[in-house]
């Protein structure tokens, strides 16, 4: 017994303590509780994994702990049990490790914010649900965590609930996620109907026994519904619109929830249910397509954003698209690998951006920055590490994972590879565009920038090291018992091309934003249409408003309310009322108001009943 339950319970304790008594606690106490609980659960994860000898080639198959039966009704039997296999192990390491770092960072970042204890309580609660999600050994437990992280993301996006845009963003995230969760729930129902259980092990065991279906079928249905859920949580087309707005939350939240962990839940979920996907080629194809389109579109949007966090947000969407591409092309391990590296460098990017914003005391507009490398050197260096990592410059982490995905894409369909490479180029371009705009040139803002305290840049440094060297953690090898590596030699030129694309992007960005800053304007003017289109994110939000929201509102107002509610339902109810009153008006005559006459009536009735039973014989 490894006491897995301790891993999520520790953050929950932190949440309870801070949430219930945080008002009375002093900041040091809150920090100790919040950070301490997460660090402790990270250490416990390490202990558990060593206990299962996961690092020394152990943990070949799933290790499961059963706690108690949650729901037991008829065929439905949900038991609360946690399970660890190598996939979970990777996720656990990422979630708790990055989570711990970000908690530490947040101590510094939030130091001057109001609602201090509230923030950390929510953060711990998020950790709790995320760990539940990762550890859950059946669909329902997974779903509990799934909804929980959604809730926490809502709470934290709307953390500055005094600003309207924050609350709006929170609502948007929540509602968009509902759509995805709807699909997920349907998928769960299908699974239960079809397999009669929700336990991962049993379901997948059954699936393995079944043949791969050529055309659409139950597997395709389940997979696509799951995919809907995944697109909701992981911000893929068409449900990605909430993520950029989610940047309204505090930067550590953006780093932890909307870059490193929660948004990757969809990827994790698809990888977890890979057995089902592997049985439906069409579904995998669709996953790949969704991923690729998302990656491309988001990257293009990212080119033209001026808010530093928005840029990274779109880059997150695009990178998630990469992961989906990996999953869709069957390279699940590559997807997870990229998930890990992405967690490193994207968290780093956001934290760095946060540090910049902190330095400029709240300024987020790239046009108000510039030349900061002299003022905040540490942030500069670390962000550069992140940049090269995400741009796929060898030998840094992004290079390894992204290349695996691209190779898988090439073996799947060459055109996907080319699109991916182009996207990689764009990624490099816009990331470095942001960095150059931020750090080079001359300072355009008017705040006085200052370097962040150690409690903030220490995590940056650690993450920088991870995103530089993280590529040598051979996750695919580690995941081999679950996702067998695709054999078949890879042609070396693929790598050269993608690396070239990355370097090209960087070079282009250098040319545009360092050497001749006037060039972008002219370019933008010459391609005005394209630019405005991209700048306004393809008017997707507006499109959704026009296509979905408005009809919804009008329809419900005109049809459901005016006709359905007032006419039918109210009419029915009132009809009953009037009828009852009419009948009552007749019956009132009998109601003399003297209780004894009532008693006499009762007596009469009793006599009749007895007479019936007595003379007709009791109804047997």
């Amino acid at each position: 017994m490894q006491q897995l339950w301790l891993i999520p319970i520790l953050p929950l304790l932190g949440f309870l303590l801070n949430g219930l008594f945080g008002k009375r606690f002093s900041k040091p106490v809150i920090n100790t509780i919040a950070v301490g609980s997460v660090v402790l659960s990270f250490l416990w994860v390490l202990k558990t994994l060593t206990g299962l000898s996961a690092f020394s080639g152990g943990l070949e198959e799933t290790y499961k702990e059963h706690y108690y039966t949650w729901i037991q009704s008829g065929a439905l039997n949900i038991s609360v049990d946690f399970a660890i296999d190598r996939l979970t192990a990777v996720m656990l390491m990422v979630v708790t490790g990055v989570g711990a770092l970000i908690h530490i960072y947040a101590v510094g970042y939030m130091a001057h914010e109001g609602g201090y204890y509230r923030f950390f309580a929510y953060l711990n609660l998020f950790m709790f649900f995320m760990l539940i999600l990762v550890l859950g050994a059946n669909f329902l437990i997974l779903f509990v965590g799934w909804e929980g992280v959604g809730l926490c993301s809502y709470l934290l996006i709307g953390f500055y609930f005094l600003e309207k845009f924050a609350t709006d963003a929170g609502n948007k995230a929540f509602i968009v996620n509902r759509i995805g969760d709807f699909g997920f729930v349907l998928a769960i129902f299908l699974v239960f109907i079809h397999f009669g259980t929700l336990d991962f092990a049993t379901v997948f065991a059954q699936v393995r026994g079944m043949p791969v279906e050529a055309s659409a079928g139950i597997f395709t249905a389940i997979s696509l519904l799951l995919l809907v859920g995944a697109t909701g949580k992981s911000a893929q087309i068409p449900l990605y619109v909430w993520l950029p707005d989610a940047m309204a939350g505090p930067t550590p939240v953006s780093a932890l929830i909307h870059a490193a962990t929660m948004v990757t839940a969809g990827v994790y979920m698809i990888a977890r249910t890979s057995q089902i996907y592997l049985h439906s080629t069409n579904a995998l194809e669709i996953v790949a397509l969704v991923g690729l389109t998302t990656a491309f579109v988001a990257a293009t949007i990212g080119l033209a954003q001026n808010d530093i966090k928005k840029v990274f947000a779109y880059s997150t969407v695009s990178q998630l698209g990469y992961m989906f591409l990996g999953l869709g092309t069957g390279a699940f391990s590559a997807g997870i690998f990229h998930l890990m590296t992405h967690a490193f460098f994207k968290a780093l990017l956001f934290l760095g951006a946060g540090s910049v914003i902190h330095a400029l005391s709240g300024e987020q507009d790239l046009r108000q920055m510039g030349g900061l490398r002299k003022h905040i050197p540490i942030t500069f260096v670390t962000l550069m590490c992140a940049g090269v990592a995400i741009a796929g410059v060898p030998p840094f982490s992004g290079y390894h994972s992204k290349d695996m995905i691209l190779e898988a894409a090439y073996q799947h369909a060459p055109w996907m590879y080319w699109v991916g490479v182009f996207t990689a180029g764009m990624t490099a371009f816009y990331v470095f565009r942001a960095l150059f705009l931020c750090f080079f040139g001359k300072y355009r803002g008017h705040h006085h920038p200052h370097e962040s305290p150690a409690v903030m840049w220490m995590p940056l440094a650690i993450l920088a090291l991870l995103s530089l060297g993280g590529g040598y953690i051979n996750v695919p090898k580690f995941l081999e018992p679950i996702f067998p590596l695709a054999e078949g030699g890879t042609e070396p030129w693929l790598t050269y091309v993608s690396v070239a694309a990355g370097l090209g992007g960087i070079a282009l960005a250098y040319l545009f934003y360092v050497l001749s800053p006037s060039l972008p304007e002219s370019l933008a003017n010459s391609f005005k249409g394209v630019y405005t289109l991209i700048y306004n994110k393809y008017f997707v939000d507006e499109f959704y408003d026009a296509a979905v929201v408005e009809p919804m509102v009008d329809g419900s107002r005109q049809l459901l309310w005016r006709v359905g509610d007032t006419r039918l339902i109210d009419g029915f109810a009132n009809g009953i009322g009037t009828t009852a009153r009419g009948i009552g008006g007749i019956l009132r005559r009998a109601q003399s108001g003297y209780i004894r006459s009532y008693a006499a009536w009762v007596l009469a009735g009793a006599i009749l009943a007895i007479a019936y039973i007595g003379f007709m014989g009791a109804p047997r």
Partner: protein
Amino acid sequence: MDALLFMIFAAIAVICGINLVVQTHPISSALSLVGVMGALAALYLLLGGEFIAAAQLVVYAGAIMVLFVFVIMLLNAGAEKKPKIRPMGKYLGAPLLLLFFGMMAYLIQQILPSSPPVVFGAFQGGTAADIGRSLFTVYLLPFEVTSVLILIAILGAIVLARKEVD
């Protein structure tokens, strides 16, 4: 002997019952009701219901009726005026009552399977142990529900009888 005892206690019960109806002062009625209950307790003993007899004394005579007497004394309710019977009561109640009684008698005589006369000690199943056993096994659910009912009654009584806090 059994018959004699039955006669005695039945007589007590009936007389007290009549007294309950004819007395005009509530407290006299209350005491005659206590008398009925005592007599019934004795009859329960004859029928082998020891526990029920004791419960009859403790619960009914000892608690409920004391509560009645307490309330009567608290309100210091005087004797009621000459009861002017409502038409409903006069023209419907009394005849119906006779009809009802006659019918009961007829049914009891006709339908009931003839059974051996009541002898004290012929039925031993009414001890506290038996009652407890079937109360906590077969009738557990009703028992629990009743306990909830009692709880609700307590709350209701408190809410009704408490002083109005302004």
